[in-house]
């Protein structure tokens, strides 16, 4: 096996990275949802610094991938969108972390 092939094999896990999670804004959203049970739209917007439209669009992608569950309700006549990571989302986030640590951790300084 040539050096190039060996190196390519070592970086193989990068090509298997989940692109839905890999996008920085979505990764940030998933990281915040990973450490809590649930949070609403406003909380996520404040924590991530994303705009309403931007966060909304990323959440839709995460919802479509089955990583985030969305519950819409009214509290004191005001709308509240509560979000939490699904089991699938938690697994996807853990797998992503492990994969990136595995790849980047092996690289020389």
């Amino acid at each position, binding site marked *: 096996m040539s050096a190039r092939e060996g190196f390519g094999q070592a970086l193989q896990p990068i090509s298997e990275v989940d692109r839905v999670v890999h996008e920085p804004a979505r990764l940030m959203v998933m990281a915040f949802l990973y450490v809590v049970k*649930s949070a609403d739209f406003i*909380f996520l917007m404040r*924590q991530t610094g994303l705009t309403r439209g931007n966060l909304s669009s990323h959440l839709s992608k995460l919802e479509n991938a089955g990583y985030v569950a969305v519950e819409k309700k009214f509290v004191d006549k005001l709308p509240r969108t509560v979000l939490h990571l699904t089991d699938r989302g938690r697994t996807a986030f853990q797998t992503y972390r492990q994969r990136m640590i595995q790849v980047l951790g092996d690289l020389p300084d």
Partner: protein
Amino acid sequence: MSQEIDLTRIERQVFRDSYQDGLMEILTGVLLVAAGITFRTAPAPSVVLLALFVLAPGYKLLKKRFTYPRTGYVELIEEEPKDLLRGMLTFTLIATAVTVLILVILGELRDAAGLYRWTPALVGVVCTGGFLYAASKSGMARYYGFIVVSVVSGSAFSILDFESWKTGLSLHLLVVGGLLLLCGVVIFCRFLRRHPVLVEESPDVGA
């Protein structure tokens, strides 16, 4: 990229953000002041009942009324009650053992009267467990300040050697509780001033 995802830091940020309203300080302060006032007159379970049936529901109500409309709603992952209880008991045992050992070395525990006299200091040290937990979860410096106050106040009211050890303990609870209450009210007022109410315009997600 993932190597830079520091989940502990994110967890701390979320914890700090959800406790930035000062309501926890107010709640703990009220509890300690109530314990300090009723310590000599009412049976101890009355404070536990006050915490369970008045303060806990009141806390949730205040959070819902004042905090969530300003910061958004978040439900933190709670630790298993079993683990929490085990941690509290372990800390209490270690803190008690260390305090007693120090007092024995200092020659302050020659008889039962000595043990009673140093009860405020012992309670002061045991109380630091809660503050240590909050400090480790949030990384906020003010909890270390409360640790110092709790130990200094407990020791001071032990050294002052009142006629009854109960007086020292009552005063210690009132001082620490009063300080927490005062800090909590100041933090809460500042929180209300700095954070306007945010109304969620119905986002497209989940539609």
